[in-house]
């Protein structure tokens, strides 16, 4: 009797397991795929040629104009080649373009190199660009990066309209007519939104987004190369003849949910290069990695914005208060103590990795810690209208901002003797909703990551009157005029001069109070060479070798 009970118990226990197993009949085939492909990537590692790096599952289909986040952008940059590319210093060089000629500040003639192909054999011609840009700009396609085309004639956010400013002249030539002057237009063309698409993509964009066909240094290793939520395997594209010819045999981007896991893999040598260090290891990673640690400024500008309409921050009084607040913040100490030196105190409104950056702009001393001057300016403002209440900085609590917000507030509190505190929002989404709807009634944190390495990208979208990301509703006619002069300039150097002048106005008005530039923190494993981080904080994978 007992024996039979025991057998029954065993059977029942197996039943629990097998019933649950039966719930997902596909478990067998999904299991076998990752196992076999790991075996192949393991072999490749032995030959010393495939670079393994960290990444994250793309949040959008892998279509250049649909992608606006780094997880997908990193993959697209490896798989596609645009008209220009950016080198390690952020300078733009022709990639597919034979020449980009400015006819006048609103029109350009673009010639592309002959005999270029996509990895499915289709040739790269003028229409590959024109059709891709039209697809990305069309309102009903709802592409995340459609705003990149807003300067091209014919663009509309509200209704479907063709980009009439694009004209195909012949197979290898097309003209671009802009609806406003943009002297930095050629500089933008290295961004992924401007990549070409093969004609076959338009037949079924959904399928293309799952299995993209590019023309860049790398291509998908096979139909199952993109294992969702796991990794994507790229191999070199033998037909690529551009400047970014890979020095390695391939690139495997492993998706990590946490930076801790990526860092642990780096320490064990299971991944070759990573472009993020977890907070828990920021104090030790330079000791752990030695020369293999990377800590350099990135094209990320951090600030907090005081809305123009906020009480006590309007007009002359507001200008004094903004300057007082800025001078009350000890940026050096905060970047050192709170961030372990992984931020660089700001000296302008852009970033040191951008051509045209300067730390000697007139008025930049407002960004230096100067408690006496701060107290004086604050008192002057109080004379106009006495301050009462608490100065608050709103931030999203899910992004690790609480430490520095508290530090900034303490710095303000100690210097000016006023109440200052953080105003946390639980999630980034909630925070941005209030900022976008203008229902926020405190100062709030702002950050900007450049889309392309140009000064204008840090200024125009943020501070020009009625610009898309002008969250504080700043407006200054002189500033707008200088931007416009920069946009109509004949060459980049002249344009940068105007943009620097425009920044000197910002340093007086402080529509946003600059805090610091984020650094890129990363590292690479032993035996890995030629690691250089690009202006956008992503390693230039094609240069990396190992073994």
């Amino acid at each position, binding site marked *: 009797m*007992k024996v039979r*009970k*025991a057998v*029954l*118990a065993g059977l*029942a*226990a197996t039943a*629990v397991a097998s*019933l*649950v197993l039966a*719930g*997902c009949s*596909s478990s067998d085939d*999904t*299991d076998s795929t990752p*196992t076999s*492909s790991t075996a192949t990537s393991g072999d490749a590692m032995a030959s010393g040629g495939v670079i393994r790096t960290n990444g994250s*599952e793309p*949040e*959008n*289909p892998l279509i250049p104009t649909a992608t*606006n*986040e780094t997880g997908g952008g990193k993959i697209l940059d490896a798989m596609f080649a645009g008209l220009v590319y950016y080198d390690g210093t952020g300078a733009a060089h022709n990639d597919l373009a034979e020449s980009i000629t400015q006819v006048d500040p609103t029109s350009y003639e673009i010639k592309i190199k002959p005999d270029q192909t996509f990895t499915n054999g289709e040739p790269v011609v003028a229409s590959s660009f024109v059709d891709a840009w039209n697809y990305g700009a069309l*309102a*009903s396609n*709802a592409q*995340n990066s*459609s*705003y990149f085309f807003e300067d091209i004639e014919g663009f509309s*956010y509200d209704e479907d309209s063709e980009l009439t400013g694009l004209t195909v002249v012949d197979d290898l030539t097309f003209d671009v007519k802009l609806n406003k002057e943009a002297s930095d237009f050629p500089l933008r063309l290295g961004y992924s939104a401007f990549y070409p698409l093969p004609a076959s993509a338009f037949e079924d964009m959904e399928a293309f*987004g*799952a299995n993209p066909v590019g023309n860049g240094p790398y291509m998908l290793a096979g139909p199952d190369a993109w294992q*969702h*939520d*796991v990794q994507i395997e790229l191999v070199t594209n033998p037909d690529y003849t551009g400047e970014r010819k890979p020095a390695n045999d391939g690139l495997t981007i*492993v*998706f*990590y*949910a*946490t930076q801790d*896991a*990526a860092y*642990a*893999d780096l*320490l*064990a040598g*299971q991944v070759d290069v990573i472009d993020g260090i977890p907070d828990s290891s920021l104090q030790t990673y330079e000791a752990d990695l030695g020369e293999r640690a990377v800590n350099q400024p990135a094209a990320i500008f951090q600030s907090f914005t005081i809305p123009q309409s906020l009480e006590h921050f309007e007009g002359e009084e507001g200008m004094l208060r903004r300057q007082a607040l800025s001078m009350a913040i000890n940026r050096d100490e905060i970047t050192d103590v709170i961030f372990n030196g992984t931020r660089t105190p700001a000296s302008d409104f852009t970033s040191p990795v951008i051509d045209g950056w300067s730390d000697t702009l007139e008025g930049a001393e407002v960004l230096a810690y100067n408690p006496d001057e701060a107290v004086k300016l604050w008192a002057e403002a109080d004379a106009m209208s006495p301050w009462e209440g608490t100065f608050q900085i709103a931030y999203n609590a899910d992004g690790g901002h609480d430490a520095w917000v508290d530090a900034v507030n303490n710095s303000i509190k100690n210097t000016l003797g006023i109440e200052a505190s953080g105003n946390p*929002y639980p*999630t980034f*989404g909630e*925070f*941005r*909703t209030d900022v*976008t709807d203008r229902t926020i009634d405190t100062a709030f944190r*702002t*950050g*900007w990551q450049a889309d392309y390495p140009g000064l204008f990208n840090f200024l125009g*979208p943020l501070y020009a009157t009625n610009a*898309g*990301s002008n969250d504080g509703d700043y407006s200054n006619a002189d500033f707008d005029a200088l931007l416009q002069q920069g946009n109509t300039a004949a060459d980049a150097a002249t344009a940068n001069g105007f943009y620097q002048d425009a920044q000197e106005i910002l340093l007086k008005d402080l529509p946003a109070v600059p805090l610091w530039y984020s650094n890129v923190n990363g590292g690479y494993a032993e035996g890995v060479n030629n690691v250089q981080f690009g202006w956008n904080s992503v390693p230039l994978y094609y240069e990396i070798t190992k073994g």
Partner: protein
Amino acid sequence: MLTYILRRVLQAIPVFFGTTFLIYFMVFAMPGDPIAGLFGDKTPNPAVADALRAQFNLDQPFIMQYLLYMKDFFTGNLGVTFSGQQVSDVLARAFPVTLKLVLMAVVLEFILSVVIGLISGLRKGKFFDNISLVVALVLSSVPVFVAMFVAQYFVGIKWGLAPVTVGADTTWGAMFLPAAVIALTVYVTGMRLMRGSVIESRQADYVRTAYAKGLTHKRIVPVHIARNSLIPVITNTAASFGALIAGTTVTEGIFNIPGIGQVLYQAITQSEVPTVVTFVTILTVIYVIVNILVDLLYAVLDPRIRYV
């Protein structure tokens, strides 16, 4: 027995609707606009945002969104993620991985519970019993993530005995370390249950009878003591199976295991309603089924319990 099963299954139906409704409501009530979140620090163009909102039914009132979701759910369409994948595909990929991890952890947990519990029970108050109690107290007071990091650092990085992270290599071997750490942090309950019932059985009449009959120690321990002491351990293990399936997010994050915990975490941070609701619904269903089976196990294992 049959009516009992039927009743339990029928009870599961309101549980199913209740949970999906609650979960849907909670994700819906999550403050902030998921579409705005998609654009980072940049302000999305209103037209683009509206188009995306319509695509994911986010422009409908709450009850309509829920009904549309339910309609799709029962017609086998679990929705698509923001990146355009079928949620059912995501589930089919992630679920087996988690299942494998949890199965391995539960088997290890069971073995640890039975072996250590049996020896402790037989040597009550002796050296081994005391040591196992101290070790159990230490292990159950260490937070899971601390145990994970320590194991990863020493076993994986320092000694190189196991892969540091799992990633694409979701084989049994690669997932042994995380499974073992899970087992070590949860076996304590089962071990103490086993020990308690072993001590109880040793004093039971049938054991005394067995000794009186002249049976050897070697036969009485496995056949009479151990087998009858297994009942609470088996049900405890089965119950922890359901709890672990739903609770592997931390483990999967640390060891980079592409299972449901990780996918769910990312879906929550992106406010991806269809993914979150589908995953939680499936987890609920599993939990309910496992619980029904556990209750039935009692009856099978212990003749004194009968359901009518």
